[in-house]
């Protein structure tokens, strides 16, 4: 008598095993992603390298500090400022340099320690000493002092209301005495969520802070997942592994939200697609050549054809829906090949000229090469030859700092367009002129007036005056504003894309 398995028995067992396994695998998404019903899963394209609230350069990461830290003021998804740890918006002196914040008395850190003025002062001092954007802060912040336990005074060296836009994006209030290096691994904030699990650059799991001073958040658990590929991110949404995605390939946005079970939205955010000229060297030291290029570009085709409507076309830095947009100024550089030819004649180059455009590879947010190729074709139609020089993005930034470029078409995400880009690139007193941009006193004057107040009505005329300078000098080809866009599944409530780009999930719920 023989014992053991013959070949047929082995094959039968293998077949049965495979069938059992296949039956299990068919369970699908719920099986694929073992998370509870009370978890909202959102994925981001950018890295989630650590837990530090301000030491990051990718804007997706901002979703984490929004959930875990508090600030004096926060920026709502629509771009408006609201008090957070402050009881109300600050009192500002007439010259716009002294801000006095009254603090709430019911704010507690996750550790249970009450948040007082000394913590605010310590957080700012630590930031000025070690923060990633400390150079920017040092340039305008003269001092931060505690008047009493619940009053803080911030003194600026010059008016700049836009500094408060920084807070949601680049700050976070810490308990006094916190070790800077410790906050890479631990959350010590006072925000609506606490971190329960963290795998660097893979996943961050959070649970609601029931003692949150603005009321316990409606969603009990949130899971932030890092998915580095846009197509995979979309597939994860379609299979139910995540509920909200940060971005997707632009061509897939409209078809996906047209499908049953999905919703999406896009708004012009604090990002911009533009091509600064190096005005310090030929050929773009000639304003007519700059204008010729600006008038020859078909922005509608770039934004709607190449980027499927996810870049909002605009010939000036302001988006058409914004309070400081100026239609007359925008008309100056509307697509008009005849006007481009006129400027070529004015420049004494009726047959055109050549220049090199430096294009980042790969680009963030949208691929710059696609716009560059269309620009090349538009310019060729009026006799201008645009050569494309592709460059790694970090080398490109070094070239931009060194002024080693002629024209630099690229997408860029900013903390704010009117409060950051306009100041940092073009002001004499604040700017880094990192795009080799010369500055002018009258431009500085207009912006300084705008920065005295954070009231849009008071700011608008001064911002338009500054815009007039940018248009007159034709500093850049402004292509359009990058839209913040998201897709989410049915059942997600209270979610909208944010002006600041990073997801704001504080009020969002999943059912």
């Amino acid at each position, binding site marked *: 008598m023989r014992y053991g398995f013959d070949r047929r028995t082995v094959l039968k067992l293998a077949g049965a095993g495979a069938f059992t396994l296949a039956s299990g*695998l068919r369970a699908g998404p719920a099986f694929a992603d073992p998370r509870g019903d009370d978890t909202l899963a959102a994925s981001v394209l950018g890295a989630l390298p650590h837990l530090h609230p301000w030491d990051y350069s990718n804007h997706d990461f901002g979703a984490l500090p929004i959930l875990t830290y508090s600030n004096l003021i926060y920026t709502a998804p629509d771009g408006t400022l609201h008090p957070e740890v402050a009881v109300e918006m600050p009192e500002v002196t007439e010259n716009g340099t002294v801000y006095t914040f009254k603090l709430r008395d019911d704010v507690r850190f996750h550790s249970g320690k009450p948040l007082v003025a000394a913590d605010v002062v310590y957080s700012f001092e630590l930031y000025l000493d070690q923060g990633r954007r400390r150079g920017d802060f040092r340039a305008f912040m003269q001092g931060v002092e505690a008047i009493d336990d619940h009053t803080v005074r911030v003194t600026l060296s010059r008016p700049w209301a836009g500094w408060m836009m920084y807070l949601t994006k680049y700050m976070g209030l810490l308990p006094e005495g916190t070790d800077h290096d410790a906050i890479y691994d631990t959350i010590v904030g006072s925000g609506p969520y606490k971190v329960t699990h963290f795998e660097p650059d893979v996943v961050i799991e959070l649970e609601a802070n029931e003692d949150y001073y603005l009321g316990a958040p409606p969603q009990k658990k949130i899971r932030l997942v890092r*998915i580095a590929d846009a197509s995979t991110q979309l597939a*994860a949404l379609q299979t139910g592994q995540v509920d909200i995605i940060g971005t997707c390939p632009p061509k897939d946005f409209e078809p996906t939200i047209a499908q049953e079970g999905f919703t999406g939205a896009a708004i012009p955010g604090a990002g911009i697609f533009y091509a600064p000229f190096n005005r310090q060297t030929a050929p773009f030291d000639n304003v007519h050549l700059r204008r010729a290029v600006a008038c020859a570009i078909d922005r509608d085709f770039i934004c709607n054809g190449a980027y499927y409507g996810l870049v909002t076309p605009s010939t000036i830095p302001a988006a058409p829906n914004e309070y400081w947009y100026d239609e007359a100024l925008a008309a100056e550089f509307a697509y008009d090949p005849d006007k481009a030819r006129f400027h070529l004649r004015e420049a004494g180059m009726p047959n055109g000229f050549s220049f090199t455009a430096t294009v980042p590879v790969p680009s963030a947010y949208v691929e710059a090469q696609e716009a560059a190729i269309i620009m090349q074709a538009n310019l060729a139609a009026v006799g201008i030859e645009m050569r494309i020089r592709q460059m790694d993005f970090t080398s490109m*930034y*070094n070239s931009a700092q060194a002024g080693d470029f002629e024209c630099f078409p690229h997408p860029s995400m900013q903390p704010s367009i009117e409060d950051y880009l306009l100041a940092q690139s073009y002001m004499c007193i604040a700017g880094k002129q990192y795009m080799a941009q010369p500055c002018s006193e009258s431009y500085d004057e207009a912006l300084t007036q705008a920065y005295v107040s954070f009231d849009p009505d008071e700011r608008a005329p001064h911002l338009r005056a500054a815009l007039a300078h940018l248009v007159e000098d034709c500093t850049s080809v402004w292509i359009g504003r990058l839209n913040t866009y998201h897709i989410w599944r049915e059942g997600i409530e209270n979610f909208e894309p944010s002006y600041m780009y990073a997801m704001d999930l504080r009020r969002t719920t999943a059912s």
Partner: protein
Amino acid sequence: MDLRLYLLQRLLALGLILVGGSMVIFVILRFMPGDPVVAMLGPDYDQAVAAEMRERMGLDLPLLTQYGIWVGDALTGDLGRSHFLKRDVTELLAARFPTTLMLAVSSLLVALAIAIPAGIIAAKQKGRALDHVSRLVALAGVSMPNFWLGLLLIMVFAVNLRWLPAGGFVSPMVDPLATLAHLVLPAITLGTAYAATITRMLRASMVDVLQRDYILVARAMGLQERRIVWHDAARNALIPTVTVAGFAFGYMLAGTIIVEVIFNIPGVGRLLYESILTRDYPVVQGIVLFNVAIFVIVNFAVDLIYTMLDPRIRY
């Protein structure tokens, strides 16, 4: 040769290869365009802050000094600290390598499961339709880019059929069945290309073996054809195939970058990809050095497997 002497030789070779590899990767990274400080600070970085960071990260030191410090630390098991993830490279490798190993092993199993029967059947049916089909499929497998096949599989099996997850990874300690489900599509993606290579290798060597005299003798003695093919011929034909499979496994361990990115698997490949983009020198150097060591060790293991397959081989 004495096995101990052979082992000593291989260890010496491993040391030399690691030294060479460390120099090459160090020099290539430093001469590659890009700047880790700019990658961390962003486009409109402050020059003074950038200078402070370069000094803190030791990037302002002469290259030779930087290399000396890195190698000195590496000899004590310290591969440095990630600029970007703020963690020790060894800790990152320890966390990520098991995932990559699981992916590579599954991919190798997929490759062998396809290649062994396909190669043997193709050789046995040499010149007939089945042989042509197998060679055509092998050619298609070699030619098909990983990223395309991966996306296609996600589209069909995850998005449309909903049979399998689109990506991600679940630890077997949490849910072994979920681990398996998450590995199926990436393993097929990675395994298919190598299956094609192994199939072609095995077919060629089987064709050669099936023409040998001892196979003729076996047939003349009236042995069953199945036994001749699967037992007598296949065993000998597998020796060169093991070399190819060994290389393939080494490549799978070191070359999972695209598959890990597409399937969002948090392994060493994805870590390497991110670290190259952010110019995270310590991590890239550490991973490359680790991969060199793995490759040498896998090939050494292949040499040892030879002796098991063919007792005539001695070292």
